[in-house]
């Protein structure tokens, strides 16, 4: 019994849990389409990495490794920044296309530039109360 308890120390359990969360997030990222869900999946993957790191820091005897903890703190702040930017991008995309998913297929060759900018113009005029006219237009002069 004590052997089992020793084997299942946090230094082993939590890295394992982190690896599972990483794989789970990866699975969700591949399978789901809605961008918000994909961002959640990436965040869960990130939490998995942090759990591995903190689990490693808690291995063995003695106090946990402060460097690993400091790195995790940095990682969490980076993750929230990336998430905030990604969400802003999702909202922008939804405004332009009416979709919160990335449509399959490369949008570049088949849709010439000015068509797309016309589309954007369309979106602007259609829902003016929700869209502050941005300072830029699709075309540059």
């Amino acid at each position, binding site marked *: 019994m004590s052997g089992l*308890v020793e084997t299942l120390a946090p230094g082993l*359990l*939590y*890295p*394992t*849990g982190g*690896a*599972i*969360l*990483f*794989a*789970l997030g*990866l*699975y969700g990222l591949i*399978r*789901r*389409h*809605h961008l*918000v869900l994909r961002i*959640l*999946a990436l*965040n*869960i993957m990130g*939490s998995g990495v942090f759990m*591995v790191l*903190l689990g490693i*820091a*808690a291995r*063995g005897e003695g106090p*946990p490794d*402060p*460097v690993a903890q*400091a*790195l995790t*703190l*940095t990682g*969490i*702040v*980076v*993750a*929230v*920044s*990336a998430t*905030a930017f990604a*969400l*802003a*991008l999702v*909202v922008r995309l*939804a405004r332009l296309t*009416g*979709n*919160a*998913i990335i449509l*399959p297929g490369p949008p570049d060759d088949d849709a010439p530039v000015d068509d797309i900018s016309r589309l954007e113009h369309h979106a602007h005029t*259609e*829902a003016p109360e*929700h869209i*502050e006219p*941005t*300072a830029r237009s699709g075309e540059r002069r």
Partner: protein
Amino acid sequence: MNLLLVVFDLALLAGLIGVAWRCLASTDLFRAVVLFITFGLLLALAWVRLEAPDIALAEAAIGAGITGALLLVTLERLRVIIAGRRSDRPDTVPPDPSGPGAALQALHDPPPEPRTRLPALTFALVVGSLLVTTLWHQPDAAGLEPVVDAHMDASGVDHPITAVLLNFRAYDTFLELAIVLVALLGAWSLGRHDRIPARPAPGPILPGTLRLLVPVAVVTGVYVLWAGSHQPGGAFQAGAILGAAGILLVLSRPRRMPPPPGTLLRLGLGAGVGLFLASGVYGLLAGHGFLGYPPGWDYPLIILIEVAATLSIALTLVALFIAGRPEGDDRP
């Protein structure tokens, strides 16, 4: 006793994995976000168990709190966009419910098509099991704890994590502040801010609560910042708490917020990196190395940088919640 802890660990991990699974499997986005916030709170518990109270504090404030607020306001924004599109174009044919456009129908993601399940599952299983096997093979390396411990005297602070963040690996922390700022610059470059789609909250409850809550949050934030030099806490946690208070304020009076003057706002946002960099360049010129502190000046400089960083982080997080750039920023 130990057995109980093992049972606790296993239950917590099972709970985390279960909640994450439900979150990623849900078709309703609101539900997914709520589950994600729950996931963040459970994570904070796990960090406490791993003797990382600093991280637990940060996870609760940043991971679950701020990220949760950002996710919820994003869903509300998406909802408003859809509603606007629908009411503006009653004549257009609604998108095919099974087609890609349906994703926006009701903040709903249709269940993924079964044909990707097997390859995705195989891929994730292979990655996961390889990771687990690798981790089980690793030794109980001591890590850098002894090295940090040996240099604590020269760090200027008493809390090892603060010493690592603001002295030994100050460069990483500087870049971390920079990333928060860069994320905001990116969000601002996407366009001006729109109204926050807050539903009106009539009655005296919200303003009354806020009147109580905001001062408490400010005091807590200042305490957490001050505590950081000798016990768990520090600039990032404090910044997140103050940022949360700011978000509450913005939410309670979305229409009455005066647009902040552009220059002052930019200065506030850049204060953290600016002061950090100034101190770093001084260190370089004075021969203590880039981002090094002159002997004896480490404690006051670290505190000064932390205060500026707290202010900048709080402001940046609120600005990221509002998302677009303020009108004042575009004035000539």
